[in-house]
Each structure stands twice: as structure tokens, then as C-alpha cells.
């Protein structure tokens, strides 16, 4: 691991999630997207034809790492590969998580060749409306006045 990989941080949006550029060319990079649903981020990563036992997802030091290996099925005897555009071998993506993400509650599932990771935001970091209270605590009596004028 090189120090400069930490300098190669690409800011995606408001520093909530940052993508780390790869430091090693021996990996292929599956494409991904990030969707913001306010209370959670959903990361979808395209990983067609990967066995689940060769797919791992780790969080360490605030970095979410998708890694694994895509193996080609063994060819039958006498078979020849004529064209190959698909990517094989080890893959890796690293995404830096901001403090707003609750790393303990990250969930993932793999379906139709898509690894879907749900990363909930910490409750404290959700946008919320803050009530403005007056110093005299006059909110309740005020409501009574409105009621009185209606009757």
C-alpha cells in the first residue's frame, strides 16, 4: 500500500463519499453508481457472473472495499475462446465513507449480477427541523388564545 493512494482522493459530492483511485493496475474496476435517499446511500456495483464466495465487502478505517475475483468457468475439452470482451480476474473498488454513514449498519445483497450496498446515515446527520422555543415558554398560552377566539 502506498501513501500516494490516499492523496488520489476524488471528491464525489460534498465529501460524503469519496472514491479512492486504484494504486495497482492488476485489478479491474467494476462500474458503480451511488444514489442518495437522504436517510441512506445505495451503492450499486456491476459484477456479473461472480460467485458469492469470491466476493467480499469490508469496512476498515472508514473505507468500504469491494473486492474479489471473477473466475472463468472451465472450458470443456476441445473448446476454443474466439472472442473475449469480458473482464476476468481480481477486481477492487474502494470508497471512503464520511462520518455521516453508520458503518455498523451497512447491508449488502447480490442479485442479477449487481452488488447492492445500503449504507444508512447516522441519525444525527439527517436533516431535521429544529424547533425554536421562546425564552418565556409562552407557546402553550398562545394556543389557548387562538382557541378562545374561535368559539
Amino acid at each position, binding site marked *: 500500500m502506498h501513501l500516494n493512494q490516499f492523496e488520489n482522493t476524488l471528491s464525489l459530492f460534498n465529501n460524503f463519499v469519496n472514491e479512492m483511485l486504484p494504486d495497482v493496475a492488476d485489478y479491474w474496476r467494476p462500474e458503480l453508481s451511488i444514489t442518495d435517499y437522504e436517510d441512506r446511500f*445505495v451503492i*450499486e456495483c*456491476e459484477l456479473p457472473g461472480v460467485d458469492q464466495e469470491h466476493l467480499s465487502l469490508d469496512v476498515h478505517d472508514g473505507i468500504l472495499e469491494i473486492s474479489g475475483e471473477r473466475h472463468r468457468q472451465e472450458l470443456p475439452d476441445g473448446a476454443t475462446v474466439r*472472442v473475449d470482451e*469480458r473482464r476476468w480476474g481480481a477486481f477492487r473498488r474502494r470508497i471512503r465513507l464520511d462520518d455521516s454513514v453508520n458503518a455498523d449498519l451497512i447491508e449488502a445483497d447480490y442479485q442479477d449480477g*449487481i452488488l447492492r450496498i445500503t449504507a444508512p446515515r447516522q441519525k444525527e446527520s439527517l436533516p431535521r427541523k429544529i424547533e425554536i422555543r421562546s425564552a418565556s415558554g409562552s407557546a402553550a398560552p398562545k394556543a389557548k388564545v387562538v382557541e378562545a377566539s374561535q368559539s
Partner: protein
Amino acid sequence: MNGATLPAVMSSPFRIADRVFDGRLDVRYVGPGAVSVTETGSATIFEFDVPGFTADSLSIDVEDGRLIVAGRREEAEGDRKVYSERRMTSFRRILTLDRRLDPSAITADLANGVLKVTVARRPESERRRIDVRTAS
């Protein structure tokens, strides 16, 4: 990405009609619809990467000796997407089938985002000798 795959394509009997060569040697199709073609003794197997596509969203047609595979997938709510490298929501690949293949003997399976299309080879036609008649 990997120039080494190009010679294999050039020497292949399977011409990928939609492949665009723009003069660069590292041109390679990337994204949904990327294919590998494997020949066995009895069939040719086309495997397409189609992550996020369901069986309903894929179509396979044979027309004039060409295999046409297309797909369209639904995208997550676009305005909520804050970052995306995922290339296309639809694709269309056209591959010329070798004449030794039987376009009426095609099967297709979808698993884990990989569409596997198997086209059987025609049974070897028997060699037949034709007598040359002479005008007597």
C-alpha cells in the same frame, strides 16, 4: 484496456458487426452486452454480461444469419443519483453467425447477470459424389 484481445477478434469467424474500430489498438467494448464467444465441438456459446437486466428486459433475435441481442434496464431514480459510472441503460449487439451453425437450434439462460446463448452446430452434411453424365 487490453490490446491483446484484438488479434483473437480479427482471426475469428465471428464478426462483431457493431464493433467500432476507430484506429486505436486498445478499442474494446466495455459495458452491458460485452460478450465472449466459445466454440465447442457441437455448439457455439455466446456469453453476454448483462448486470441488472432481467429476462423480461432482454431480447434475442436471429435475422439474416445474424444474432441480435438487445436489452433495456430500469434506472434508479435519476435525480437521486449522485455519482454514476454505469454506462448504459440499453444496449444492442449484432453478431454474424457462422454458416455451420443452426439458427433454429438456440437456447438461452440468464443467471447472475450473465446471458448465455447456445447455438448448436448443424449436423455435418454427408459428402455426396455426383456422377458426370456424358452425352452419348
